[in-house]
């Protein structure tokens, strides 16, 4: 947080200087980024690439113990997972994003989502971190990305781990 200037000495006989100090304080607060403009995202890895989804759409994160495939399922659907008695439809994000299929391993993670009609989850490699993203810093996906891939993102943002693609989950789950 930016350090505030020490308040100017005022006296009851100088109301104009009090008003001036209040205005200075307001200007200082206005210069700070508003808290509601920073949106928390969960970052996760697919290979060495980092991706993010809004924390408000996260239900929980669990280790992927067993996944049962379903015959006739679309390629982007990994199968069904029993999450403490609840059946979750696990999406293969890697395939949906065109990264190529890879068998799930013991270290794979299920990111269970909220806000969808069916219980859904994403199969990811590992969790990166939680980031407070300043919405002003979100940029469009790179022009070098194929249109099909770019359509899965609301944008990208630079984080310490690299360029993080911010997933558009509502679109992703329809693919």
């Amino acid at each position, binding site marked *: 947080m930016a350090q505030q200037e020490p308040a100017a000495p005022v006296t009851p006989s100088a109301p104009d200087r009090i008003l001036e100090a209040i205005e200075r304080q307001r200007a200082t607060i206005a210069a700070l980024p508003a808290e509601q403009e920073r949106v928390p995202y969960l970052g996760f890895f697919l290979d060495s690439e980092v991706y993010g989804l809004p924390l408000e759409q996260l239900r929980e994160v669990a280790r992927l113990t067993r996944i049962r495939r379903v*015959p*006739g399922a679309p390629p982007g659907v990994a199968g069904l997972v029993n999450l403490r008695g609840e059946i979750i439809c696990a999406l293969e994000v890697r395939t949906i994003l065109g990264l190529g299929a890879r068998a799930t391993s013991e270290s794979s993670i299920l990111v269970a989502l909220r806000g969808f009609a069916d219980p859904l989850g994403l199969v990811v490699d590992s969790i990166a971190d939680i980031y407070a993203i300043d919405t002003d810093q979100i940029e469009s996906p790179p022009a070098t990305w194929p249109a099909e891939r770019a359509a899965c993102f609301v944008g990208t943002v630079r984080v310490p781990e690299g360029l993080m693609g911010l997933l558009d989950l509502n679109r992703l789950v329809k693919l």
Partner: protein
Amino acid sequence: MKGASLRGRHGDPVEELDSSAVVTLLLFEAADCLMALPASEVARLLAPGSQQASDEGGASVAWIDLDEYFSGRRSEGPWLRWDRGERCAWLRVGCVVEVLACAIQALAPMPACFRSEGRGGAVGGAGVRGDDVFLLMDPARLADPRNELST
């Protein structure tokens, strides 16, 4: 647990549904999946290789190898005789796993992404067994080469 009443179009009670009701399922493996059928709909079990010994090998009853149906690989497992009212079929599975009593409320409809008109449409729902998941099959939706199962 208190039962819930189902009502017909005119409001008349048609069935008493107990949410704690239990259905007995026959679990089997096929096409690398764990699948289930209501045990009450499984009338017979034929050991591998005994298809020819059956006197029902004619055109009136469908014989469907579920491994081949879903994954293109032929199974060498047993055959189950499925009967539901007038409908019937012989289903070949990889192996029979167990008979499981399952609360109806523990069964879930398939998520929308699995509901299809294709071959996956034969999966009507899913349930849990320990930390595993099984698929509840509806053989009536299997696409018979003759477009419908025997009636």
